[in-house]
């Protein structure tokens, strides 16, 4: 017998590990310099706005270094956007893999999220290292809280991603709409400039977007003296993350997501 009996947990662990290696090697192995592009692409995302706005808006936010403001805003936003879209499309990619009975859609999701978190950690380490070399005070005063905010971002992205995937199984057009929503979201989440720039009376509406809470919380924990606006806090994104993850998992159980894969 060359296939040993394993417990469900061991099977899942083996499968996630195999998928993780596969995910990493397919990301890094696209070309000879594939591993460089994995880093360059997101770094470019950050470097251009820093270079462009960093000098223009140098004194735009009193008491805050603009590049750090940008990086700590981008960090949760990019994490959110990529994981959300990747989970949404995860039902379509890797369909062939599901022909192996050990491989479940959830394993594919888990491996993708883990791979992306690992890559993101490297990218931000590189960016922050670069800024540290330039003389910025990059280390966050509240590192554990920052980590918590980023973990919540991943959970929110994953939950909403599953929800979108389920909706996409009803009508694929809804996925296109979800993708389009990310364009205004970029501006409405206050990535390039703080949302306090928006008129005061908009605030209640802007605060309906859970991402803006996470972006501001990330800055609040990572930048000294960065004050949180009164409308924002951890409770709302936490509630949305829990609700969407619950609904996403429920729809997963009901096989709405794998139906989309079939």
């Amino acid at each position, binding site marked *: *017998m*060359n*296939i*040993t009996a*394993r417990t469900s947990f*061991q*099977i899942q662990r*083996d*499968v996630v*590990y*195999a998928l993780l*290696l*596969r995910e990493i*090697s*397919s990301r890094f*192995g*696209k070309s000879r310099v594939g591993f460089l592009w994995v880093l360059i692409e997101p770094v470019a995302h950050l470097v251009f706005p820093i270079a462009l706005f960093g000098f223009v808006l140098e004194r735009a936010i009193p008491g805050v270094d603009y590049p750090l403001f940008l990086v700590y805003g981008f960090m949760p936003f990019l994490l959110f956007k990529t994981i959300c879209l990747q989970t949404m499309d995860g039902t379509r990619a890797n*369909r*062939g*893999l*599901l*022909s*192996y*009975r*050990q*491989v479940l859609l959830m394993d594919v999701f888990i491996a993708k999220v883990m791979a992306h978190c690992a890559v993101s950690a490297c990218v931000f380490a590189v960016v922050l290292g670069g800024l540290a070399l330039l003389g910025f005070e990059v280390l966050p005063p509240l590192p554990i809280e920052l980590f918590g905010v980023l973990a919540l971002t991943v959970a929110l992205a994953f939950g909403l991603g599953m929800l979108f995937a389920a909706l996409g199984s009803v009508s694929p057009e809804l996925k296109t709409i979800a993708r389009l929503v990310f364009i205004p979201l970029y501006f409405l989440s206050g990535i390039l400039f703080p949302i306090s720039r928006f008129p005061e009376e908009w605030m209640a509406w802007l605060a309906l977007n859970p991402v803006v809470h996470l972006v501001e919380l990330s800055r609040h924990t990572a930048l000294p003296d960065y004050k949180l606006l009164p409308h924002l806090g951890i409770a709302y994104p936490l509630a949305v993350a829990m609700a969407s993850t619950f609904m996403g998992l429920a729809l997963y159980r009901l*096989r709405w997501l*794998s*139906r989309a894969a*079939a």
Partner: protein
Amino acid sequence: MIRLENLTKSYLTMRGRKVVFRDLSLEIPSGANVGLIGRNGAGKSTLMRLLSAVDLPDAGKIVTDGRLSWPVGLMGGMQGTMTGRDNVKFVCRIHGVRGAGMREKIDYVREFAQLGSYFDEPVATYSSGMRARLAFGTSMAFEFDYYLIDEVLAVGDADFKAKSRSVFAERLTKACVVLVSHNMNLIRKMCDLVVHLDRGRAALYTDVEQGIAAYQGAGGES
């Protein structure tokens, strides 16, 4: 033994729900090679999908005391950007085969598929024949109690066909097949009993000829 217990499976289509099986129950005894026959759309492939757990039934379950393979010669699981070797490693890993066991499998597949230096090239650069050889070799590297085969069995040139046939024949001394085919000669040659699928019902024939006759009577080709 493979037992289907009140298996119900339907798919949602644009024009509503299409039921493929309703309350299908069937027991396939141990040690028998099974041929699945039926007209196009009778649900053969659906049943194979359920057996290989690609898809799950709406209700009911499949009980077995044996190990069922993935669909033999499956190529969808091969990732184009990865090398043949890495694809084999992936299959080993999800089956919990590591270390020396994994090296053994890799050697077996490399030997079997005869890809030469292409074994360490990305699968995307393979010809369709090479890909099929890799996929078939990977299937043969693992020992199962049932091999699930949907139609295609013979791939590659005459030489490879002869080899795969002999390896497979050797394997069948210890294992069984569940074979979907429209080729009645193949069914006659390989199967000990047939399951005829027709309009959501399944009939088990221990006499292969009788099953084939039922299939042809129901409008199937010879």
